[in-house]
Each structure stands twice: as structure tokens, then as C-alpha cells.
């Protein structure tokens, strides 16, 4: 039988530069996603503010101490107590003012941000980890196991998440980074598990999964190679969807006194400190509250932009 080399094959004949004929535009999923993301101005602005906030929280305390640059202003220690200066309003020496112990709020807000953000991301990652494992098993196994696991999840769904976090902290009795992460993730991974399960079930219908099975791929290879990598997009979105709730949860727990122990601080516990003196020195409660609101708002906008960029169903042409 004579062979008809296909047109495509001819186009890329050896020796011929590949760009001959119709050049194939280099375009990857991530590049496409980036292009779509930067089109969304709100999301770009949110990402910028988010980045500046991170820079402030993690880099400013360090910059502050660089000799010869900032020390001329004042070497600020977030733990430095200075009673004569307590309740000072924002000024050049204390851009955000000072708290009831006279500690500099500009430095303390950065310190509190470090802890809030670390706990926020830590708990979010824990939520996703549990969600991915649970959801992937459920969606991949299917049938009775899936049904059982999902009904169990339905039962858990009724659990209120903050009371559950409070109970967890009360039982453990110790409040530190790790117990906060556990308390915040223990009753909030259900949605993540559902998202992953749904995604796995959708992906399972794909022809390439069938094709992989048709060449004898074992189940763990199908799951690890063909299913999980393709859930990366929704997972990245889920990080920024979960983050605001977790940060708010942490702030709430700290606000009611179940959070990080003094003299360390999180934004929630700083707001709690400010509550006692909100008439005399409103800036003490306002500063951390604005920080929390900004972070939550940014995370929401970023999640929105990422969803438009990464989720093929909502893509414009």
C-alpha cells in the first residue's frame, strides 16, 4: 500500500526550519493564564497590594534595622515597651502610633502580619492537603466507597467551624503556630475535598485517562500522572479562596483571646488590645483591622482573577 505522507509531516520535513509554513505560536497553559490574569485590573492591583503587604510584613522589620539608613529614624523593636509614649497617635517617629505599652505599632503590625499570614497559609495548605487526599480517594475509587465517604462528609458539613476550632484549642490547651493550624483546618477541609473530588471525577471521563488505562497503566500511575497534575489549576484558585476565611478565623480566635500568646501578636490579638482603648486611641484597633480587611479583600480579588485565568469554563474566547 502506497503511503501518503500527510501534509503536516511534509511541513516539518528534516532540514527545513520548523517555522516554515504556518508557524506554531508558542503558548503554554501558564502563559495563557498569565495573559488573562493581567487583563483583569482589579486582580492585578490586588496582587500588587498583596505583594506590598507581604513585603511590609516580612521585610520592613529587617530594613528598619539596617544601620545608617533607618536607624537614624529610630531602631524599632516590636517588643520594646515605652510607657511614657503609650497611646501615642501616629507621628513621624511612630507612623502607626503606639499601643497601650508604648510599643511601636508600625513594627508590631508587621510582626502580627507575619504570624497571621503564616498561620493563614499554613492552615490553608493543611486544608488542601487533607482535601486532596480525601477527595482524590473518593473521586477516584467511585462507587460505594465514594458514596460512603461523601455521605460522611455531608454529616460533617453541619459542624460549625469556629466553635470546633475553639473546642480543639481548649482540648489541646496549648496555643502556638501548629495548634492554630490544626484548629483552623480541622473543620474546614470539607469544601476542598468536594472540589477535588468533583475535579477528579470530571478528569476521569477524559479520553486520555481511558487511553492510559488502555495501555495498561496501573491505578496509582493514572492518579498521580494523569489526574492530580491536572487539578493544580483549581488548587491554586482554592488557596486564595480558603485564605480569607482562615485569616478571619485566626483573627477571630485571637480577638476572643484564644490566639497567639503575648508578647507575640497577630492582627486579631492586636485588635483585641485596641478594643479596651478604642475611645482614647482608636488607631490601635483601626490599624490591624485595616490590615486584615486589606489582606482578605486582596485574596478575594486574586482568587477571582485566578479563576478567570485558570478555569477553562469561565474563559472568554
Amino acid at each position, binding site marked *: *500500500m*502506497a*503511503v*501518503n*505522507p*500527510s501534509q*503536516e*509531516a*511534509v*511541513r*516539518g*520535513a*528534516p532540514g527545513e526550519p*520548523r517555522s516554515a509554513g504556518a508557524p*506554531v505560536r508558542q*503558548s*503554554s*497553559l501558564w502563559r495563557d493564564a498569565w495573559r488573562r490574569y493581567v487583563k483583569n485590573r482589579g486582580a492585578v492591583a490586588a496582587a500588587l497590594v498583596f505583594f506590598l503587604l507581604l513585603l511590609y510584613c516580612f521585610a520592613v522589620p529587617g530594613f528598619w534595622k539596617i544601620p545608617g539608613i533607618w536607624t537614624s529614624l529610630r531602631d524599632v523593636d516590636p517588643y520594646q515597651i515605652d510607657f511614657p509614649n503609650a497611646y501615642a497617635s501616629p507621628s513621624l517617629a511612630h507612623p502607626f502610633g503606639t499601643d497601650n505599652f508604648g510599643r511601636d505599632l508600625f513594627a508590631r503590625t508587621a510582626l502580627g502580619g507575619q504570624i497571621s499570614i503564616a498561620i493563614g497559609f499554613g492552615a490553608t495548605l493543611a486544608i488542601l492537603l487533607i482535601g486532596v487526599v480525601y477527595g482524590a480517594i473518593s473521586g477516584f475509587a467511585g*462507587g460505594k466507597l465514594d458514596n460512603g465517604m461523601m455521605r460522611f462528609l455531608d454529616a460533617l458539613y453541619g459542624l460549625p467551624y469556629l466553635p470546633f476550632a475553639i473546642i480543639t484549642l481548649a482540648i489541646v490547651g496549648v496555643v502556638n503556630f501548629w495548634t492554630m493550624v490544626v484548629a483552623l483546618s480541622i473543620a474546614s477541609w470539607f469544601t476542598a475535598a468536594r472540589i477535588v473530588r468533583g475535579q477528579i471525577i470530571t478528569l476521569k471521563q*477524559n*479520553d*486520555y485517562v*481511558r*487511553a*492510559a*488505562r*488502555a*495501555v*495498561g*497503566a*496501573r491505578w496509582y*500511575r493514572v492518579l498521580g*500522572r*494523569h489526574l492530580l*497534575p*491536572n487539578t493544580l489549576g483549581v488548587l491554586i484558585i482554592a488557596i486564595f479562596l480558603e485564605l480569607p476565611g482562615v485569616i478571619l478565623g485566626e483573627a477571630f480566635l485571637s480577638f476572643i483571646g484564644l490566639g497567639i500568646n503575648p508578647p507575640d501578636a497577630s492582627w486579631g490579638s492586636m485588635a483585641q488590645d485596641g478594643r479596651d482603648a478604642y475611645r482614647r486611641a482608636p488607631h490601635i484597633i483601626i490599624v490591624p483591622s485595616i490590615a486584615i480587611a486589606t489582606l482578605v479583600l486582596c485574596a478575594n480579588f486574586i482568587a477571582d482573577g485566578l479563576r478567570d485565568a485558570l478555569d477553562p469554563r469561565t474563559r472568554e474566547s
Partner: protein
Amino acid sequence: MALLEVTDLRTHFFTREGVVQAVDGVDFSLERGKTLGIVGESGSGKSVTALSIMGLIPRPPARIVSGSVVFDGRDLTALSESELEDIRGKDIAMIFQDPMTSLNPTLKIGTQITEVMKRHLGVSDEEARKRAVDLLEEVHIANAADRLNDYPHRFSGGMRQRVMIAIALACNPKLLIADEPTTALDVTVQAQVLDLLEELRDSHEMAMIIITHDMGVVAEAADDIAVMYAGQIVERAGVLDLFDRPEHPYTEALLGALPQIEGEGIREGRLTAIPGRPPDLVDPPPACRFAPRCPYANRNDSCTTEPPELREIRAGHWVRSAHPASERAAHAQGAPA
């Protein structure tokens, strides 16, 4: 002994609406180096037959309720999942209808080809890549060595189907099942892919099953043809015999429905269609499944009371009907006497 012997295969789907008898008593055998074409309209059970052979039917809701699939002396329906996994891709390979979605978009095609060889042949990375280049050249993809590093989105539909074929051939299978291999392709590319399949069948000495609803495809590529209707094979014959002397009223109607551009007996006006619709497989007609649409069935004969058997009406030509064409002719001749 035949390479593949399918006997009385029944695959049913147990759904809330009832039991769907998607494949209901399919028999055929396939010799080494031969091509069998399975033809039928959507929902006639062609694909489910293929998936049953591969052990890839979705369980639940589907289950093989009876029958055997003897491949190379082993009954595939009796094997465990892990034994089947060792056979899939090594001894039996399958290519699917839509090449646009059959490759994982997140993996380079080199990875996807070598994966199979590493899985079944235990070859080294380097060896697998070398073989992958040969395979791509064999399916006529130029610049094979470079293209291993490309992702699927840089390939056109026809090229992707070639890559799928290369993956299927990676372990020199004894049987290749092609489920509508050309349906999703442009007409010009269809012919090229069919030619390629035929060429590879000869060079690799494999048997092949081509599943299609396109009579033109099987006419070109198959040695034998099985026509499926409502989960059953209604006619099975060599390709020339089937096209020259179709026996089953359904096959006749199918061939009659082919559009013709020129030649003898060309029809004018509208294209011919088969009246009625394929039966509901939850509750199929009790006897002959084609009876409600058959122009020759009448209320008084066995068509509505007794299910017809698949019988050999002449050497190598099997038909499941009470009114095959040759008997109708004989009857018409005998009547005036």
C-alpha cells in the same frame, strides 16, 4: 486456532431505568493478520463490545453477564484486573475516536510514548526514547527526535492520531482495536490514517478490529465485516460478499442509505433513510430486534415470536434474519409455480 474468539458475549448496564442490554450475544473470531470491521449505528453496541474485550467497561454500572473472550488461548473475562493491565497495551492495544482529547495535555508526547514501553517491556529510558523516535518515524511524523519534546497542543488532529497509533504500537501488540479511528478527522486525513493502519498491520503482523459507522471505512480496510444492530451481530461476511450480496434487510438498508454521486442506479432527490428508530435496549423487541423497522416482517411469521439465530446462509456468510435476501428471491421465484 484463531487469535481472538468471542463467544456469546453479553454486556449489560444495570441502571436505575432497568437493564440495558448493550451487547447481547455477540460471536466472532479473528485470525492473525486479518482485519475485522464492526459496523453499526450509534448505540448498536460496537464500542461496548470493544471495551468488553479490553476489560475497560465502566463497572458499575456495566457487567459482562455471560460469554467468553478467548485471546491467544486465555479467557480475558476470567482474568483479574492486574492480569488484564499486563495485557492491555502489550498484547492488545486500542486507539480511540477523538485524538484531540486522547493525549494528556500536561505531558510531553515523548513521555507518553515511552511510558508504555517502560511499563510493559522494562526497557531503559534511553532505549525507550530511541524506540519512540523509530515509532514516530514509522507513523510518518517528521523531525521525530525533536517532536518528542513537544506537548500535544502543538500537534494537529491527524498528527495526534498518528501519535496515538505510535503509542498503541509501542509494544508490538498482537491485536489493535481502533474505535472509530477516523471519525474525528478531516476527510483528507481519514484516508491517510486508514492507509497507515493497513500498512502497519502488515508490517507488525497484527490482527485489527476497526469499529466504525462508516461503510466506506470498512470497505477500504477490512477483510471481514460484522454488522451490529441493537447489541447483536445481524450479519457477518467477507467484505466483498457483504457489499455484493447483502442478506440482512438492515444491511441492505444501510447500504441503500449511502449517498452516491455517480454510477448505475443513482437515485435522485432526497437521501434514503431507514424508517423508525433503533429499539430501546432496556426493553428490546421480543424476537427479531429489527422487526419493527423491517419491510419484510409481517405479523404472521416468526419475526415477532421467535428470536432468529445467526445462521450460515452460505460458506462464510452468517445472517440473523428470517428473511435474508437470497431466500426472499428463492421464495419469489417459487411462488408462481
